[in-house]
């Protein structure tokens, strides 16, 4: 099992650097930088952090083909591989529909777009060029190492696609039932491409709020949970048995950004269904279950907890537990 931490570049770079330093000290192997059009650039942040932390790998997760042309993604991956050979991963996904719409972009044919993007990026990184009946593009430099391409997925069909074409999959769920179903879908996709599930790095990209105080953990996780619920499709909402009326209320409150109302409107059960709430022991149990399901990487995603430093130290305790387990074996 590999462990990584999600960093969101809505924080200043000096703060990301500090959290990266804590990540290194608690035994985490890598960092995933999330990409949002209204935050700092994940690509430029990756440049800085790759130079700062020579032991950590860094993934950019995820770049969408609507805002980033496949040639741009290949160019980024190739350049980063020169800064840090074998320490760079690229995540490709459909992107958040709401964020794209705000930028005036319609997220049409996400499956086709992601599949084509991965194909082009991979070809360019492997051979230096890509050519078909529509485009003919070439890099004028040599990528220094292979850059694994992860596919970010949540829905059933995207999970299958990820299993079919990804070097790894970033499964964007925290709910155990959904994570279990996701493994089945990824397996189907992998089998369609005559691959085995264990040929992929299957990463559970979790939303974590770890604390001994449940009410504080819930409060810290509420905005994250709200974003997950509002960005999710109908299938997700139905599967979790959520009341569409409440979901609509949460959407409305989120648009206004009224956090006080959000805490009142969002039932604790909904937060628990979409994020991890608990202490270090519960997190160990949860990860053990994920490992049994076939997950090979755990991404600890924000908010981490109501107290970030304390939460990261607790995550360190969890990582250490599994390292000791491996050493015992």
């Amino acid at each position, binding site marked *: 099992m590999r462990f990584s931490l999600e960093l969101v570049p809505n924080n*200043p770079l*000096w*703060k990301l*650097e*500090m*959290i990266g*330093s804590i990540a290194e000290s608690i035994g985490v192997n890598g960092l995933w930088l999330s990409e949002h059009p209204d935050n700092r650039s994940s690509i430029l942040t990756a440049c800085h952090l790759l130079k700062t932390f020579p032991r950590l790998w860094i993934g950019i997760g995820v770049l969408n083909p609507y805002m980033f042309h496949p040639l741009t993604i290949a160019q980024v991956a190739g350049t980063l591989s020169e800064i840090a050979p074998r320490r760079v991963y690229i995540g490709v996904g459909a992107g958040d529909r709401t964020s794209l719409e705000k930028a005036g972009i319609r997220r049409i044919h996400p499956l086709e777009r992601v599949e084509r993007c991965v194909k082009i990026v991979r070809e360019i990184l492997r051979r230096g060029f890509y050519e078909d009946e529509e485009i003919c593009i070439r890099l004028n430099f040599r990528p220094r190492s292979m850059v694994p391409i992860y596919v970010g997925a949540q829905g059933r069909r995207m999970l299958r696609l990820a299993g079919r074409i990804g070097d790894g999959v970033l499964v964007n769920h925290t709910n155990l039932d959904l994570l279990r179903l996701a493994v089945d879908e990824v397996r189907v996709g992998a089998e369609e491409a005559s691959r085995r599930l264990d040929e992929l790095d299957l990463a559970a990209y979790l939303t974590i709020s770890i604390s001994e105080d449940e009410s504080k953990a819930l409060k810290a996780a509420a905005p994250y949970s709200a974003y997950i619920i509002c960005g999710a499709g109908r299938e997700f909402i139905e599967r979790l048995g959520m009341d569409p009326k409440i979901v609509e209320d949460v959407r409305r409150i989120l648009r206004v950004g009224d956090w006080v109302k959000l805490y009142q409107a969002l039932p604790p059960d909904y937060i628990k269904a979409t994020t991890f709430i608990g202490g270090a022991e519960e997190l160990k149990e949860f990860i053990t279950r994920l490992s049994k399901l076939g997950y090979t990487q755990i991404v600890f995603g924000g908010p981490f907890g109501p107290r*970030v*430093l304390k939460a990261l130290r607790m995550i360190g305790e969890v990582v250490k537990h599994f390292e000791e387990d491996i050493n015992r074996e």
Partner: protein
Amino acid sequence: MSKYLELEEEDRRKLIDGILEIVLSSPNSDLVPDEVGWKISNKFRSRKLYNLDGFKLLLQAANTCEPIKLKKFLEGMI
């Protein structure tokens, strides 16, 4: 500042840890002047944050991004 100097080594560490927690947990850290932030990060990464200089920098940062939380915390600590 003089109260900081009166504290035992272990209590000074606790105090600095507490203020560091306020800064790291704050959603308002963009308000902290970058110059102060980079100095804190450099000291933190080179393990030189736990001294009077580090304390002063953290006070400045926390007072910028979370003044009320800092005040409450200091009242409980010192």
